[in-house]
């Protein structure tokens, strides 16, 4: 968005823009805490953080209705939090505790929540795309006007499941919004070394899906694009596709020595930190005082600390329960 457009958006509804800022800060602080807890061995397994990419999920989630569905990847703590899963339940899950949103069975990469129609967390690259197509198919067949939103990385674009899903969604005219989080890397593989055509929105257009690219560091731009797309999908205009251009500031996971990219490149992108961009814009417009900013940070910190305390106080699922949920539990007739 241009400076004028940003100023206009802020002037229109400063309270809402501050809300978006708070949402991004929630995700950022939650994940910074996760990284510390990982180093302290409270969280184990793989941990993939979204730091730098917060504007994407924040902008998209902001326009969804409560009964829409969300499908995400293994980099999904922020998505779950923004969708309305409690920080407590997410943190407890990462601790492997019974109070976690999956009773300790899923961990960081597999967060699920039926109440918010959050269909995971999927640790198989591109594994969520066909699921999203099916969820949308169910809505279409049932005559509901719900939208399914599917997040995935640009690495997934190379997988067969991506192409098969694009085709089915377009062929059957399904109510699904595909959100490609293009952070330029799939682990250590840069986009230009994995795709012959690096214009991902163009690729989606090849399946006759309405698709365009958006500045994924600008939460207002993301929100506007998402609103347009979600409204169109809900109105029956068929699948839509957003390529959200973003960058991950941290390593791929906690095991990544980042041999494949220059520090200078990371630093360049960090100058476009989505949180800093929005905070600066609000301040320039006189819509965020120093007191408001510190109050916001303070409240977020309280939420994160409360989540840690909740997880710390959690309990282990009894080992006798190990084989539960392999099959559905039927109540006796």
């Amino acid at each position, binding site marked *: 968005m241009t400076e004028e457009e940003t100023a206009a958006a802020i002037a229109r509804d400063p309270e809402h823009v501050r809300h978006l800022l708070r949402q991004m800060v929630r995700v950022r602080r939650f994940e910074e805490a996760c990284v510390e807890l990982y180093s302290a061995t409270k969280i184990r*397994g793989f941990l993939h953080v979204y730091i730098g990419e917060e504007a994407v999920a924040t902008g998209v989630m902001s326009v969804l209705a409560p009964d829409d569905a969300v499908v995400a990847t293994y980099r999904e703590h922020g998505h779950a939090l923004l969708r309305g899963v409690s920080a407590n339940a997410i943190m407890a899950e990462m601790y492997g505790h019974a109070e976690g949103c999956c009773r300790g*069975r899923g961990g960081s990469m597999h967060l699920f929540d039926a109440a918010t129609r959050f269909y995971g967390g999927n640790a*198989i690259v591109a594994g969520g795309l066909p699921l999203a197509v099916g969820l949308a198919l169910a809505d279409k067949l049932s005559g509901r006007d719900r939208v399914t939103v599917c997040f995935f990385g640009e*690495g997934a674009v*190379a*997988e*067969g499941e991506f192409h098969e899903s694009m085709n089915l969604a377009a062929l059957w005219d399904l109510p699904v919004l595909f959100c490609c989080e293009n952070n330029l890397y799939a682990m250590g*593989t840069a986009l230009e070394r994995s795709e012959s055509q690096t214009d991902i929105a163009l690729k989606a257009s090849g399946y006759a899906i309405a698709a365009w690219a958006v500045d994924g560091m600008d939460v207002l731009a993301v929100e506007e694009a998402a609103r347009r797309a979600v409204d169109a999908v809900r109105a029956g205009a068929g699948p839509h596709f957003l390529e959200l251009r973003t960058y991950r500031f941290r390593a791929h996971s906690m095991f990544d020595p980042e041999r494949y990219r220059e520090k200078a490149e990371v630093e360049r992108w960090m100058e476009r930190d989505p949180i800093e961009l929005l905070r600066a814009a609000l301040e320039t417009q006189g819509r965020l005082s120093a007191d408001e900013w510190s109050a916001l940070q303070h409240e977020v910190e309280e939420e994160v600390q409360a989540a840690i305390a909740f997880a710390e106080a959690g309990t282990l699922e009894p080992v006798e329960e190990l084989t539960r949920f392999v099959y559905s539990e039927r109540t006796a007739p």
Partner: protein
Amino acid sequence: MKLTYREAMRAAMREALQRDERVFLMGEDVGRYGGGFAVSLGLLEEFGPRRIRDTPLSEAGFVGAGIGAALGGMRPIVEIMTVNFSLLALDQIVNNAATLLHMSGGQFNVPIVIRMTTGGGRQLAAQHSHSLEGWLAHIPGLRILTPATLEDARGMLWTALEDPDPVLIFEHGSLYNVAGELADDAGPVDIDRAAVRREGADVSIITYGGTLPTALGAADALATDGIDAEVLDLRTLRPLDDAAVLATVAKTHRVVVVDEGWRSGGISAEISARITESAFYDLDAPVARVCSEEVPVPYARHLEQAALPSVERVVAAAREVVGPGG
């Protein structure tokens, strides 16, 4: 020379790349990133991008391309980051690699080697903890290798590359950091025979891959109770070395099969069935099995540990088989 399992595997790839111009390595993040498990670290610098090929995320595509390159006269080593993602390439492995020789009436063999990490134990939850080597051992046309020692990590690859048919090598994730001594002249090893890793007289613990250390640990624990366990490392799950299995049964008359795969329909069932078919009257007790619980592997550490085979469970099974008198 002291080195890790990971380094032994890397040395094997380096040797293969040096010895045969037709050999190349391809897979996700094998080059710039240095390999998902750092096995191929440094090979890109040494051999260049023509022979150390980073692929996009496209398991079916690049495994299929490896099969095609093998048909075209190359000797590809295809790395699938983990067995979990090989599921996206199962069509190519099962419907092409395993069948082409037979369907073509012997005209087209597929000299490909596919390497992948397998197994659980690192709190990665269900989608990243599968042990499916026993499953793939179901398929005629494939050879399934499970190196569990430094010698085998160093030596199996070259022999596999010399095999005219598809070979799958499963490297258990828990083994990569295992360090030990390897002879300076260590080189190719056979890929046909099982190996007795510990001699014993009272009970045979039959296992492979990631549970070999578990079995050896159990044997040590049993020794303190005066139970003398033999440990047989299968090394190759297809074809199985029946003679080695029957020989250890004939010696101890008691068997515990240890497998990180699930019990139902697993390789442990196959081994037990073969013993029953060929050595029923040699047995002094029913064959026992220690496998993973029948549940997708959970994230929480205590649940995961309860799901996977452990030294304690192997010891308990062995005691049971040996009986109060043993």
